[in-house]
């Protein structure tokens, strides 16, 4: 396992990056994405899986914003806003499906839902 940068390295980094270095933003995004993936893979409750997907979308947003800051380019912000709108649409349809599932099948466990038709 590689060690974290030593203090001297951080001061070196501060000379060309005012504030937190880009890698730490990316590392936080990677950790958030991994936690979201952990939720999708290990949880079988449809609602928790949806929330984990929201986490992963946010991790992607963080990456866009971090790069937008490094390059001083606002396109990343625009992309993040579009991702947010897509996430809202996804949540609305996804939750409607979960509610329909609960009504028709009486379960929100995705393992128990194997067929599209009743």
């Amino acid at each position, binding site marked *: 396992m590689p060690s974290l940068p030593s203090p001297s390295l951080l001061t070196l980094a501060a000379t060309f990056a005012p504030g937190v270095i880009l890698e730490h933003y990316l590392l936080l995004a990677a950790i958030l994405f991994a936690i979201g993936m952990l939720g999708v893979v290990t949880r079988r409750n449809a609602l928790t899986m949806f929330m984990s997907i929201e986490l992963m979308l946010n991790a992607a947003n963080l990456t866009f914003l*971090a790069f937008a800051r490094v390059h001083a380019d606002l396109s990343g912000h625009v992309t993040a806003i579009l991702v947010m709108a897509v996430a809202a649409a996804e949540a609305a349809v996804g939750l409607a*499906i979960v509610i329909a599932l609960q009504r028709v099948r009486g379960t929100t466990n995705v393992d128990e839902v194997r067929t599209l038709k009743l």
Partner: protein
Amino acid sequence: MSSFLASLTLEHWLFYPLALLTIAGALGVVLARNPLYGALSLISTFFFLAAIFILAGAHFVGILQIIVYAGAIMVLFLMAIMLLALDAKALGRRRVTLFKLVGGLFSVGLVGLALSFLGLRQGARGPIMWIRIPYQKLPEGFGSVAAVGDLLFREHLLQLEAVSLLLLVAIVGAVAVAKGKI
């Protein structure tokens, strides 16, 4: 050591505690047995993440994060969770399967991979792609509503309209799916 402390900016002092809180909230989402607690944990995660967005200079996106995510989307989630009224029996008990174990290891491995990229910085093999990107100086009003809105409506108008169409379809679709008789 003192020169190291002196080199720390306010962004450093705020970023790392906020990052830890964000990770803790995200873990709460995944580990909470009841989705209701998970949703509340996710709301706190979104607030901390919004603070980190603002630290990164994305003021408008940070505020949108609070309004859209912590406000609209999470209210939708909470409404759905309360509508379903899951009890302990419906939630079932915790099961560990081979599939879950492999998936969990894979996710942890992803963090390990990210950490190894971080370590490459010190390596003698030369920098990987993004490492030597110097920070550009941020122009006045970077990340403000005016600047982002200008770009959004001038250069990304088509994408904006496509997303608005998507939202319309999602609204109609959500009603059509959730409305009992189809």
